[in-house]
């Protein structure tokens, strides 16, 4: 099977999901669960009016920046903690504290200090997300095989080449898990941050329509983002996953 076919292999599954959703909506009665038709109609309206692209664009930009920053910083912290007992002893408890402080509080505090600004949002989201990436990568760093590190040492790979050819391939599954979970987490935190103190973005719209109990619109916005993630899955995460795992001895 070639890569490009694999890329689209999720489509039947998504179609099935839509069909099930439609059936469920028809059974439940549209008032309780708006079906995909109702939601897509609303989505089309909101797209035509320019509202959805506008707000989705803001949210995507925020998610994108916060995600990249959080992945890089979180991976770095996780690796350091996973490799150095001494630093781990001092910083790891902080990580756990940070990990378990509700997003709400971090967001409120950053907004209070920095005002209702874009920078405050990005910082709040990154602070919420970094511990989660770091915890996952810390576990990954703990499994790095010294045997291979010694190969790198003997053949004098130097830090960068070691990272690229020895460390990252071993961390690939952890990075993928952190990236997928991370994307969804960043997105959820961006929503909260938007609904608490921004005047645009999907979270802001969700809050508005949630107050009105306009479930189809709420779902339209959420699903627009989910669609973006599915595209990212097909074009980024899936291919990376496949090429990162093909050396394993598997059926």
């Amino acid at each position, binding site marked *: 099977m070639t890569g490009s076919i694999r890329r689209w292999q999720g489509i039947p599954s998504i179609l099935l999901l839509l069909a099930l959703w439609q059936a469920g909506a028809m059974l439940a009665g549209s*008032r309780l669960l708006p079906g995909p038709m109702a939601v897509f109609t609303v989505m089309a309206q909101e797209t035509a009016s320019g509202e959805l692209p506008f707000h989705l664009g803001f949210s995507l930009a925020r998610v994108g920046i916060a995600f990249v920053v959080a992945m890089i910083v979180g991976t770095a912290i996780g690796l350091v903690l996973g490799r150095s007992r001494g630093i781990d002893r001092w910083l790891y408890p902080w990580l756990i504290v940070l990990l378990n402080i509700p997003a709400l509080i971090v967001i409120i505090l950053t907004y209070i200090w920095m*005002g209702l600004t874009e920078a405050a949002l990005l910082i709040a989201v990154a602070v919420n997300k970094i511990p989660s990436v770091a915890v996952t990568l810390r576990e990954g760093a703990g499994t790095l095989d010294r045997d291979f590190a010694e190969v790198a040492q003997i053949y004098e790979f130097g830090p960068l080449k070691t990272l690229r050819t020895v460390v990252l391939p071993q961390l690939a599954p952890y990075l993928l898990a952190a990236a997928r979970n991370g994307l969804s987490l960043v997105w959820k935190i961006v929503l909260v941050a938007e*609904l608490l103190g*921004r005047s645009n973005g999907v979270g802001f719209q969700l809050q508005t329509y949630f107050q009105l109990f306009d479930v189809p619109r709420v779902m339209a916005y959420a699903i627009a983002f989910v669609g973006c993630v599915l595209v990212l899955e097909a074009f980024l995460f899936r291919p990376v996953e496949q090429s990162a795992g093909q050396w394993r001895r598997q059926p």
Partner: protein
Amino acid sequence: GEPTAVRVGILKFGTVSWEMDTIEAHRLDEKNGIRLVTSTYATNEAAKIALLTQAVDIIVTDWPWAARQRAEGRSLSFFPYSKATGMLLVKPGSAIGALSDLKGKRIGVAGGPLDKSWLLLRALSRRETGEDVASSAKPVFGAPPLLGEEFSQGRIDAVLTYWHYAARLQADGAKLLLTVADIVKGLGARPDVPILGYVFLEPWALQNREALDGFLRASAEAKALLARSDQEWIRLEPLLGTSDPKVRAVLKEGYREGIIERWSGEERRDAARLYDILAELGGEALVGPARRLDPAVFWPSHSEWGGQ
């Protein structure tokens, strides 16, 4: 036999909880032949979910929402609770003295772009200055507590927020520019048009007419008590959510001013007029399929109920 239980969803430190506490403290529910059961929720949305899932019978919210839900098939009814909703505040000593001064300023708006007070303010500014504040000023939407903080720190010039949040800012010296009642008056409607009310499912109301009437009587009696007795407010102190006597005083004032004196056919007609304004500005996003106000949303829907 057993008095019927009436389940009311409230917020812990919300104004409704003061009234309910007064009812319970004076056994006004028993006197009116019902048993009051309150459930506390953390947000207005939670209370709305509770109503729609019939975890409670009555909540307090606004009538445009009830009207919209009704148009979407959930037959909700509305009975007025208070006309106190929002206030537009500016900094003490601020140069802003009228709507026209808001031009180019940052206004904090609680509740988002479809908030009723905000829409009414926009309508009024259009009528008075010919410009929509939404475009002439810079609205900043956010959670009310955060907007309060922004305002205190001087990062926004004015704030349109719910009156019990405004109370705290007023106690800190913020200047009241307009109340929503002023705005309503400015739009040519009677100032007694309520914004908030008890909302319940009509079928429930029809089945439990006596209980509902009993509840509304108890509510009216509690309001009357709170309106005349300062003693009551000492009892309520733990529920006001503040230890600042200045804020308490403002809250008491605000509550009393919100009490509705008239609820006649005229107020209902004015309500319909306001609804048209909201529908025009908020559009389908706000009102959903209910382009016009269905008068049946007001309880009781057919008799000419004359008010208190």
